[in-house]
């Protein structure tokens, strides 16, 4: 029998109405990076929360170094040497790094907190990991990447044997990801077992040794990364062959929809481009290159200092987004949770929010029309929800995004601006959204797609605007689009 650091087997967890884990298992060796992948709702986070003692399992066994352990709370997990780094970091912003590391177990001397010991030991842990951080720095001043490092230091200071990371790279730049991977490798070298959850399959070959695939709460495969490939993993995740992941039929673009000339705002400079009906225009560039700011200036969400915008040949004078919306422009924002959805409200409420005038006249509400509109768009986008009255917070990320898109389609837009349309949603829903974008373009709707995911930019766009430091550095036509070309103009060489 092989020696595993951690063995979770036969784990079951039932929530009212949902059987979230159905006998899932996970086996982790010491000094290994073990990727845990699966679609949203496949049970990854639930499994992690069971391990971390945040929720209790209904059935199943957890063994550490062969010994059964019972984990009934966060403290049990800590004592067993398990540390979990959540996607949303939970550090206290106005405390120092050291105070965060030692929170609730501050070194004491004579009834008072011994800050001197706290700072020196914290600094020692930081230095041991080869990080350039000052233990006295307040967490609020750190970048997300640095906060993640603090979480890792904290885990090490707990003497953790098992560190689980939930989507650690989702908000990091490429350079920061390299630094993170460097740290992960040094943790490996110390014999720590690492569970690594990520939606970015391309990372797995770089960082992971083994991979466990979850589907519908069950473990469908566990194997060395070297013996598999991304296509196989995707197939295992969705349980079927994903053919035509990107759907795109190019058609000859129609009339000019949008003509932007010399647009300037406090954050962008001299941006000019046109968009034709039926065209998908990709906007690529690094985070902070002015992509989102460009569309915000077009919509009037950011102030416009110079330049002219023609929409369907007429000047677009958007002081607030309502003006743009009224003329047939839709904007699907980047941060779904913060800017896109009303989480406590129902699918019906969210879907119809922008077209209330279609069924509410004064105080007469046509409920039949309201549910008809909702049903129409739920069907068109195949939104998976128990009913029209399900609250948005109970849907998966992909379905939430579909509802956001549905609510905009209901306004019959001529131009749709999508900012990171597939961020944080699973492969199945991604493919559906690509297919939808394609059919919208075929119907003659113009689409502007901002994205940091090069594959989707490359496979979906008719043309690509590459932005750098608030300016357009290159417009690539379809035959010129390639990863190398985009990166060349996105990065200042």
């Amino acid at each position, binding site marked *: 029998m092989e020696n595993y650091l951690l063995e979770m087997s036969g784990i079951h967890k039932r929530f*009212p109405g949902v059987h979230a884990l159905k006998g899932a298992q996970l086996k982790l060796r010491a000094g290994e990076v073990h990727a845990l992948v699966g679609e949203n709702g496949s049970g990854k986070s639930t499994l992690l929360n069971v391990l971390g003692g945040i929720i209790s399992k209904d059935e199943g066994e957890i063994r550490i170094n062969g010994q059964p352990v019972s984990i009934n709370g966060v403290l049990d997990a800590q004592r067993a040497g398990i540390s979990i780094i959540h996607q949303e970091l939970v550090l206290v912003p106005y405390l120092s790094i050291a105070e965060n590391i030692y929170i609730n177990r501050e070194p004491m001397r004579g009834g008072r907190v011994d800050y001197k010991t706290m700072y020196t030991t914290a600094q020692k842990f930081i230095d041991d990991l080869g990080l350039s951080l000052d233990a006295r720095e307040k967490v609020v001043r750190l970048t997300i990447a640095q906060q993640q490092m603090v979480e890792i230091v904290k885990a090490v200071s707990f003497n953790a044997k098992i560190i689980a990371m939930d989507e650690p790279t989702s908000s990091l730049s490429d350079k920061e990801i390299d630094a993170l991977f460097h740290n992960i490798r040094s943790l490996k070298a110390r014999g720590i077992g690492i569970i690594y959850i990520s939606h970015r399959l391309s990372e797995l070959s770089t960082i992971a040794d083994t991979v466990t695939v979850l589907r519908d709460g069950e473990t469908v495969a566990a194997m060395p990364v070297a013996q598999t490939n991304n296509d196989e993993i995707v197939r295992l995740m969705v349980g079927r062959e994903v053919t035509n992941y990107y759907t795109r039929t190019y058609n000859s673009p129609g009339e000019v929809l949008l003509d932007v000339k010399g647009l300037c705002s406090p954050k962008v400079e001299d941006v000019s481009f046109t968009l034709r009906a039926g065209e998908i225009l990709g906007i690529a560039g690094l985070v902070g290159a002015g992509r989102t700011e460009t569309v915000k200036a077009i919509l009037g969400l950011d102030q416009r200092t110079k330049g002219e915008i023609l929409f369907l040949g007429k000047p677009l004078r958007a002081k607030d987004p309502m003006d743009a919306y009224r003329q047939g422009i839709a904007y699907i924002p980047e941060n779904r949770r913060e800017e896109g959805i*009303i989480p406590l409200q129902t699918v019906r409420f969210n879907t119809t929010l922008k077209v209330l005038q279609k069924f509410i006249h004064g*105080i007469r509400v046509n409920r039949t029309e309201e*549910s008809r509109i909702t049903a129409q768009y739920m069907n068109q986008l195949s939104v998976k*929800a128990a009913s029209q009255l*399900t609250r948005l917070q109970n849907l998966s990320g992909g379905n939430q995004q579909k509802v956001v898109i549905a609510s905009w389609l209901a306004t019959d837009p001529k131009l749709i601006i999508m900012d990171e349309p597939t961020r944080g949603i699973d492969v199945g829903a991604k493919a559906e959204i690509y297919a939808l974008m394609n059919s919208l373009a075929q119907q003659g709707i113009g689409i502007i797609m901002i994205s940091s995911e090069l594959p989707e930019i490359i496979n979906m766009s008719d043309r690509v605007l590459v932005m750098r430091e608030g300016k357009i550095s290159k417009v690539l036509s379809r035959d010129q689009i390639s990863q190398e070309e985009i990166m060349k103009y996105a990065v200042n060489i």
Partner: protein
Amino acid sequence: MEKEKKNTEFKMPKMGGGLRSFLTQYIGQVVFLLLVFLFLSFATDNFLSSQNLINVMRQISTNMYVSCALTMILICGGIDLSTGSVMAFSGMIAGFLSLAGVPFWICAACSLLAGAAVGFVSGFIISSTNLPPFIVTYSMQSILRGTVYVITSANVLRLTDEAFLEFGGGSLGFIPWPVVYMILVIIATYMILNLSRLGRHMYATGGNVKAAEFSGIRVKRIRRFIYAASGTMAALSGLVYTSRNTSMQPALGTGMEMDAIAAVVLGGTSMGGGQGGVLGTVLGVLIIGFINNGLNLLRMNSFWQYICKGVVILIAVYLDDMKNKRMLRATGK
């Protein structure tokens, strides 16, 4: 996944669903209200007399006006602590004008306008700066209360105008005028919140301000409107009080905002915004009204009444919170 999908089919709204959804949403409040009602019916001699019940309705009416407006404010994610002072301020304006011989309807109009104006100012400050509504309206409370004391020198204004006294003291048939206004206010609030586009926009604003803004909802306008509405309702409340007391007292309305907040939260509207409704508020105001009335009928010492009321509100809100958590868990995550 397949079984989830077919439920998105088009369904006709069921008849009679209104009552059922009302009961599932407010079952706690309804049961609590019935318990209080039954207890008082047996524990006191005259609780069930029509005289007493009409009396209770008259007593709760002023709280109902401000609670209805406050419901909209809480749904939008705000709060209004200035209510009590606005009552005194607009009551004072009406009182002075009336004593100067101005016809009552002009006094009333000016008073309501003054209430709307001070509410609008609060709303304007809140929507154009990012100051917390708690602080802005608390400051407004202090400023207005001070203003009233400065102008009246803490003196009581005695009213003599018949029309003014009829406004809050008279009745339409056997229904007191304040109760008539109360019914109108409830209906109007219900229409705004449940039947109009504005109401949906309010729920969206309180549910997620950013998403509302990105959807093209004019959040600033809504904020100005609700605080102006709250000011107007406070003024109406002030007018009715002043009329019923036949005098304007500078301490009028002190602590009113707290009774209103308690009633609205008791009615299931969340302090966090985006959830709730006026029907719950009606139940909340009724519960607090019956408790106040019952404790009086039981001849409880008024100091003990405060303690008793506080405990009962705490229990009722706790029960509602429990029910909501259970419902949230039942819907999935």
